[in-house]
């Protein structure tokens, strides 16, 4: 597969749209996942993923073949999503107001689907409390198993900044979870 990928990359650099389509097929999942985790919305994630591949296709000539293609793609996706989140800030929308995600689920059983949707929703809530760059760093760390140095490269950060952002993000998520638990207990008491 790696040999094929190398051939597709060379062909795509020469402007072969067919070869690039093969790369889209290969990397659609990681790119879409990054966009979804960043934007918390299936429709926006689809749009961002498409835009990421378009931008990559247009700048294929500038791509360094010695660099990891997935890192390069994820870097484009992360920066595009960060810009989108910053633009969104002009009209602030809370996580609860966002439309429910349309998650493709291939597992059978309604309970399993509901459980998965609940898990995804919880993760969505946790990520939503983070700053865009911190969010991207957390996504790269936990979903893509990227090392600190790889995160530095993708997000154009220094090593110390990456470490500090990850620490800050972990703390923010833990605090947010704590706050939600307190709210939940409070709501239960009121209900009783």
């Amino acid at each position: 597969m790696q040999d094929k990928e190398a051939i597709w990359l060379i062909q795509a650099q020469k402007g072969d749209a067919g070869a690039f389509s093969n790369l889209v097929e290969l990397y659609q999942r990681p790119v879409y996942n990054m966009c979804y985790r960043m934007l918390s919305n299936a429709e926006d994630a689809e749009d961002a993923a498409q835009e990421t591949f378009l931008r990559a296709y247009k700048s294929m000539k500038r791509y360094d073949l010695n660099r990891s293609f997935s890192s390069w793609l994820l870097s484009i996706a992360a920066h595009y999503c960060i810009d989108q989140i910053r633009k969104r800030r002009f009209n602030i929308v809370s996580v609860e107001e966002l439309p429910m995600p349309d998650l493709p689920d291939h597992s059978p059983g309604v309970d399993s689907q509901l459980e998965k949707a609940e898990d995804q929703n919880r993760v969505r809530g946790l990520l939503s409390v983070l700053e865009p760059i911190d969010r991207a760093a957390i996504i790269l760390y936990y979903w893509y198993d990227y090392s600190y140095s790889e995160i530095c490269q993708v997000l154009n950060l220094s090593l110390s900044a990456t470490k500090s952002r990850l620490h800050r993000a972990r703390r923010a998520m833990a605090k947010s979870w704590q706050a939600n638990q307190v709210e939940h207990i409070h709501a239960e008491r009121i209900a009783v």
Partner: protein
Amino acid sequence: MSHHSYEEMILADENLSSEQQLDLQQHIQLCESCSELASAWKVVQYDLENSTMLEPASHFVNRWQARLEMERLAKHHKQNRLMFFITWSAVLVVFGLLVYFTLPVFQEPKAFFLTYLYQLLNWLSVINYIQNFSQTLATGTYGGISVLWFILAAGILTFLGVIWLVSIRYLTSPRRVTR
């Protein structure tokens, strides 16, 4: 050790030494805030580590190809609009210049015509001179050039013309997406 250091140890992703673990456990038993943070982080970490990678809806590649095609068409339309704008700008400029230069004709037609008649005669004499010169040159060199060279030159010129036409056609037509 400061409270902040314990927080860092709770949220750290690298493995702690047995001494550090013991120290942290002792602190957690005494400090309510750190204890709450540790249990909260445990849950969050579990959620993050067990969250699966999501897939886009099926036929993503087809949608991407359609979008690429749309982008190309939009770019082509933009180029066409730009060409249309440049052409019409050029036409307007030429028309403006024409109006500017023909304005004296309507103001003083006699003087204008006399001036231009004089210039025309000058040009005719120059053309006549070039014609005589070319005739002399052709008479001198015609005998040396064979018919084959004339055919070859005509062939090269035709070939260059075809290349020019094909290039123009290739550069101005929108490209298609192929798989």
